[in-house]
């Protein structure tokens, strides 16, 4: 079982597996795969966590040598009935990156740009590439891949597709599903196909899938329109609403339906993505950033609708808990020192407002109009890329900084992904704060305010049974609250383990049944 990795011949930990007949299955897997198959205890435990609160040990870990190798691994697992979980950078916040399965880590060796067509503004990539690496490598083309989750340096394109990642600029650029033209997938039974526009007319596997999906969507059309959230950001359940949109715009012709957007947000449950054709967008002529300090969180949130009328590419919110933590971090401290000071009192919240315009002049105009909205508050205006990068660094560090909170109670991510219409964000924050206070704790708030996504993390200690109960109560009440305001509990981080159990409450039993049908279309052996 010894294999070379990084020049080290090791299995970290005693090899053992805990699946029926797994011994033979794993031997076959090791023979089938060119890359690493890791079954040692430590290796399995290293892949038992992602960026969520969960710890679930996989059966084994495969680090394939190529995408073809990944497909071989999946095929071998399928023949033995072993469950499979594709994984990228492991940055999922809701537990999508962990499962009792054979984890296939595509991040190490599947990161090529297969082709770049500058004229058509598209490229074809392997799933293990990070958006940051992609954009770095194609910088000279003047184009970039728009979705920018704060983990752009770690997350993989495959994971962006799996979770339908968005990011700070989604008010302008939308979500990953708006930029994925097609995907090459390996189905849970090992079959391969390309899902893109016109796939159903070319490929028999794609035709079968498309026709079955269209059937489910047609049968549930009314409920889909009734129950699916209409927020810009939504990543709960399978994206049946997007398929319905397609059916309607093609006058019901299912052969024209592109299933790639359905794969987006499916969290690795429908297929393993082996490649993607991506839409690229041109770099804007100029960018500018206004950073505005507030002495009150509510006041910052109340300012958002007015800012949205100026057409920003991003409006981001940070609260004082994160800023305080940043002051104690050697790298982030210098970014905090650049922040403006609010007029009224101590700093309680910051808004980042970014503009992308064709010219410097247009950016200056927008920045000045932003400043004019807050005559009593000090706002900092940045135009140079270096200054903007420094200011953004603090926002990007928001989530990881929270891990540094001292004490047993940590800011936990389980209701961190609510999306409501931006004009109802203030209402949501007030009610949410009440829920958290009633449970005897506090929470940190940071948000993609432009699209009404609030990343809120209550401070809880999961080693305390009382706090565990509080966690479940807060989760359920948050789901109700978001729903009552026309929003949804999974705005962009996806459902995963954290919010999967809330899906039935949100969508109702009929749509839940539809989701199960979709799952069985792709994975007939699923229960």
């Amino acid at each position, binding site marked *: 079982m010894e294999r070379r990795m*990084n020049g080290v011949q090791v299995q970290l930990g005693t090899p053992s597996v805990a699946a029926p007949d797994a011994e033979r299955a794993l031997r076959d897997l090791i023979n089938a795969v060119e890359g690493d198959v890791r079954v040692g205890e430590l290796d399995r*435990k290293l892949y038992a966590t992602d960026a969520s609160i969960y710890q679930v040990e996989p059966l084994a870990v495969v680090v394939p040598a190529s995408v073809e190798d990944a497909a071989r691994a999946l095929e071998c697992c399928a023949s033995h009935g072993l469950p499979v979980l594709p994984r990228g950078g*492991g940055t999922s916040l809701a537990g999508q990156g962990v499962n009792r399965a054979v984890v296939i880590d595509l991040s190490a060796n599947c990161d090529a740009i297969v082709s770049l067509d500058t004229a058509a503004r598209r490229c074809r990539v392997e799933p293990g590439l990070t958006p940051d690496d992609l954009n770095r490598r194609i910088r000279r083309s003047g184009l970039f891949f728009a979705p920018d989750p704060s983990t752009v340096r770690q997350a993989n394109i495959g994971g962006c597709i799996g979770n339908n990642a968005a990011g700070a600029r989604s008010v302008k650029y939308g979500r990953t599903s708006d930029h994925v033209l097609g995907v090459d997938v390996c189905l849970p039974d090992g079959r391969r196909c390309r899902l893109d526009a016109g796939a159903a007319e070319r490929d028999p596997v794609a035709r079968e899938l498309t026709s079955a999906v269209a059937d489910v969507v047609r049968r549930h059309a009314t409920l889909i329109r009734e129950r699916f959230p209409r927020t810009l950001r939504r990543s709960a359940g399978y994206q049946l609403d997007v398929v319905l949109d397609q059916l309607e715009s093609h006058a019901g012709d299912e052969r024209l339906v592109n299933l790639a957007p359905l794969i987006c947000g499916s969290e690795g449950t429908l297929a393993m993505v082996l490649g993607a054709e991506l839409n690229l967008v041109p770099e804007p002529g100029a960018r500018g950033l206004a950073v505005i300090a507030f002495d009150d969180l509510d006041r910052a949130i109340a300012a958002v609708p007015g800012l949205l009328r100026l057409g920003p590419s991003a409006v981001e919110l940070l609260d004082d808990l994160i800023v305080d933590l940043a002051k104690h971090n050697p790298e982030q401290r210098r970014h905090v020192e650049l922040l403006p000071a609010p007029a009224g009192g101590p700093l309680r919240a910051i808004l980042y407002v970014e503009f992308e315009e064709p010219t410097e002049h247009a950016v200056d105009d927008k920045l000045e109009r932003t400043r004019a909205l807050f005559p009593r508050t000090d706002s900092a205006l940045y135009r140079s890329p270096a200054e903007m990068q420094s200011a953004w660094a603090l926002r990007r560090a928001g989530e990881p900084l929270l891990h540094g909170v001292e004490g047993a109670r940590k800011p936990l991510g389980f209701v961190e992904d609510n999306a409501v219409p931006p004009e109802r964000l203030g209402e949501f924050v007030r009610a949410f704060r009440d829920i958290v206070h009633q449970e005897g704790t506090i929470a940190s708030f940071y948000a993609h305010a432009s699209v009404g996504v609030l990343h809120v993390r209550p401070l809880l200690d999961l080693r305390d049974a009382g706090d565990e109960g509080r966690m479940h109560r807060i989760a359920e009440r948050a789901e109700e609250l978001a729903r009552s305001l026309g929003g949804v509990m999974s705005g962009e981080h996806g459902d995963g383990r954290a919010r999967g159990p809330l899906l039935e409450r949100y969508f109702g039993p009929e749509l839940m049944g539809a989701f199960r049908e979709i799952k069985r279309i792709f994975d007939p052996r699923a229960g």
Partner: protein
Amino acid sequence: MCPAYQATRDERTSTRGWGNTLRLAITGQLGGAPGSPAWADPDVERALGLCLSCKACKSECPSNVDIAKLKAEYLAQSHAARGQATQAARFYAGFDDALLWATRMPKLANRVAELAITRRLLHRFVGLDPRRSLPKLTKPLRRRWARRTDPIDPTSPTVVLLADAFTDAFEPQVGLATRRVLEAFGYHVELLHCGDLGRAKISVGMLGEAIEEIEVWLERFRPFLDHRPDVVGFVVCEPSCLSAIRDDWLELRVRTSLERRRRFADACFLPEQFIERHWDEHPRRPSFRVPKGRVVLHGHCHQRALWGVGSSGNLLARLFGRERLVAPETGCCGMAGSYGYDADKYDLSMRVAARNLVPTVELAGEGDLLAAAGTSCRHQIFDTTGRHALHPIEVVANALIEG
């Protein structure tokens, strides 16, 4: 971001992977005895062994994780549980003392080091990779230092050059360049040999021994701090030795008071950093000629994480103009002291270099100068590209117009 992770994208070689490894080991979630910490666990040691101890996480990880420090502590606990440190750990920990002996007869020592049998033994017992070139010993700095007349005015302020073992044994020219520059700025320079200031012992987790060594050095430096008002600063050429004083010494449980350690740390600099920081106070201000090409600077990882690459770059930029300095924000070179010599880690070391170091080196064209403050970095530059890099203070010394 962690340079090993950037090069491999492998959970095994990531800050998170090591953090998890430590968490699982310490909380008793690994190995046969659930609930009790798994010290001296060979898998944990092997996993942690892949960390470069470059300290990038210390400054870059927003969760304030310092894997190098945690790794050293884990290894120390493991040595204690095992009753003694591993063979390789003891070899590297005693390396600075061995150099002191070997440099008494550098030619003979070089010849012994080149023998096939020596390489085989080093490979077998210490894990030294046979593909690595070994640095050449030379007549050490301490024997090149003395000279008949001191041209400096006896009332000049003094800078103490703490001659680390690597500068002393392998690259005395860096120490001599430091003296030329400091003297040109009007200082009297005093040489004090200082081993590696505990760096190797700390990185292999021999923390008890490191603490003893640190106490000895602090005692030796005490008179300079307490009774020598003429001493205005200490300089150390090797960044990983300076970082020991300015970072590790402050965090270890050394008996000498923290206040005193901090006072000493605050007086220690890289030579070029000292010149830059005290720019307006130097007794003399020599002239420099601007080199024809640019200076491409690779920052040492500890330098970058703790003080910024500007601690070497700012002086070069001041003397030659900012436009002549190319100092990309790259991380660890992959050599990381003894790391790159280890046969188990040779491939990873090379991958890290290919991602971080080689692109920087390639920025330097024919007429450009290549500079790197770390002795390992310079060695890695040679092993990966065949090019010779200078210590930044050598670049400064070479540009000096003596008159």
